[in-house]
């Protein structure tokens, strides 16, 4: 039965792939949280991979001179909750006060801060803006330089 052979082989391959995918997902699963969600379940999250999005709180960016370490607060627009973040690595050009950022890393409950391994700052027009940048915001004559 040549067909049976192929069915067995196919099942084996699919099984291997499913195994690869599921083991892969468990190892690299990252929870996507807002700032308040993170703070609400902070104690359960110690050491787990988390991705948090929010905005860079103005006046909180502190760079350690001589290194590429940066500390800042990420806040949420809906509430005023914020969380301190420590990040070391390449700082994207789009990173600035009030920029929308996504940080990925772990929450360290003992130090009450977020240790980020990656820092993404959203560049405004690479993707379509979602309403907050309405064309009416285009600077009018009086504001133009």
């Amino acid at each position, binding site marked *: 039965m040549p067909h049976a052979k192929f069915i067995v082989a196919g099942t084996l391959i699919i099984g291997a792939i499913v195994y690869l995918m599921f083991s892969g997902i468990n190892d690299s699963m*990252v929870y*996507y949280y807002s700032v308040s969600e993170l703070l609400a379940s902070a104690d359960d999250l110690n050491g787990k991979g988390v991705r948090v999005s929010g905005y860079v709180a103005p006046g909180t960016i502190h760079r350690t001179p001589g290194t590429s370490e940066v500390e800042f607060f990420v806040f949420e627009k809906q509430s005023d909750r914020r969380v301190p973040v420590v990040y070391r690595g390449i700082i994207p050009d789009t990173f600035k006060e009030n920029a929308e950022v996504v940080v990925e890393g772990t929450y360290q409950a003992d130090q009450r801060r977020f240790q980020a391994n990656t820092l993404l700052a959203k560049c405004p027009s690479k993707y*379509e803006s979602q309403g907050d940048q309405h064309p009416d915001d285009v600077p009018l004559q009086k504001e133009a330089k």
Partner: protein
Amino acid sequence: MIELGQYCLFGALLLSAYGMVIGALGGWRKSLPLTRSAENAAIAAFGILVATSVSLWYLLLTDQFVVEYVAQYSTSKMPAVYKFTAFWGGQSGSLLLWALVLSFFSFIAVVQNRHRNRELMPYAVSVLMGILLFFTVLLNFLTNPFNTLTQVPVDGQGLNPLLQNAYMVIHPPALYLGYIGVSLPFAFAMGALMSGKLDTSWIRTTRQWSLISWVFLTFGIALGGMWAYEELGWGGYWAWDPVENASFMPWLVSTAFLHSVMITEKKGMLRTWNFILVLLAFQLSIFGTFITRSGVISSVHSFALSNLGPFFVVFLASTALFTVFWIVYRSPQLKSEQRMKSFLSREASFLLNNWLFLSICFAVFWGTVFPILSEWVTGEKITVSVPFFNNVSMPLALALLILTGVCPLIAWRKASAKNFRRNFLYPLAAGLVTGLIAVAVGVRSLIPLVFFSACGFVMATIVFEFYKGARARQTIRPTGFLTAVKDLSLMNKRRYGGFIIHAGVVLVFFGIIASSFFRIEEEFSVRQGDFFKIGDYTLVFKGLSERSDPEKNVVTAKLDVLKNGAKIDEVLAEKHFHHKSEQPMTEVSIRPTLKEDLYVVLAGWDKGVVSFHVFVNPLVQWIWIGIGIMVLGGLFVMLPNSKPPAAHVSRAVDEEEAKDVAA
């Protein structure tokens, strides 16, 4: 001009609706006049979309900021070339580009098939116009590029400076040509299903289209990678970002499709499978357009915000249902002409190839949409990170790489032990030698060693194929060896063009593995005159300077590059501050060599201390070279035939092979 654009855009909608309905009717009634009318509508739709696009270009080039789209993506100060490319800088413009290119392709298909494929054409035109209708509906009612503002701004916002470079001038159109090119095989496949003319004529007719769209996808993906590498300044070229995945998935399925149609044409097998592949490729290219433009996955909870989302979902679901219905309806006529005999046959290796491509695609898809799915199912948005994609795709990619080498060596139907010994001895030895060389130059970890050996093995099989073919040819017609190679390749462009593409693939693997596993990354904070070491290089920081032009202020760090104590080069790493946008832009300095790239990023400065991120990325240039070879190989396959009967030539080569195996 604004009104002209709006009217033309609406005209395009009417024409595509007409073409869709009348084409289907013409096919159903088998009426030539109706079919001709639908074809003429397709031609007219192209004309009217050209007029629409010219209007938008005119508005962009003449700075008419009363138009919302112009105000958003252009400014009066931008150079003309970027005003021109601002056309596809945003959502509605890029959808208009889609419609324009699709109508152009439909136009060519109609002209080419004026007297051919009469059974397929009415339905194919109908399907093409149906796709066009979808885009013109979006353009007219949801995201019209000709919408005007009530308050006219003095100047526009302009294109993001990150997008103002040569890569971004060509990358989106190249990728779009690839995405849209997939629509043609899809339309002709639907033509075959709906008309019941289920032989390989739809495949033969659209072979060039599948190839050209594959070439453009390959090229477009490469340009995206190069852009990321040179502009984003994180030292890499691929991050498994949803937008990147969106371009990769249709590429994977198209590649699988290009392979599976060969089996159908030669052996009459996998007939249903081709329809499924072409449907998938089409759906993924639409999906790709959608996630690139909507940002649905990259941003948190934005699905509801994108007003186009539901339309794309409905369109994808309905085209899928429609196609699956026809495949099921025709399935009794789609039985394979032959059955698979053995695992150790070329047919089986093609089938395995297809499974692997689709598995990678499925894994990438799963990883890409996982956040959305998990949000629907559990209410929590969970993403998977880069290691997921790497861990899943690496073993599958390795299997594919090895298969690339095995497939041409293995006989059709059923391979014998003799066939194995004869064909595999030298390539396996070459793979082993490559592995030993890698050990000798200091590679100690297992995964790269396995990959490098596989690269050596596959490259050897390709060289062996050319050598064997040329020798066989020399016995028939005594010529020089290189002439024989040239004649041989020209005689069977598909086969040898395929080998050229595979050689490119090997180089891409070589570069990807080396640059992923052996990258050196360090950061340095130095004062003027200080030096630091990375890899074999010593860099001396010579100082920071500032200049400004009307567009921007530029801060430049100058560094001397020393190797073995001697100065070999000087590099400039910069940051640009565009007046228009607040965000600075890092201009990376890349010193490319075939061995490795020295990649210097000016990270920042503070009170005389300047920090740099420096990478040494080995063999990255081989990725671009490899992709260049893949593109050339694809173009080689498409060369027009000087001698028409390609069929008997390929049969002759097959016979040659058969003799070879028998010997």
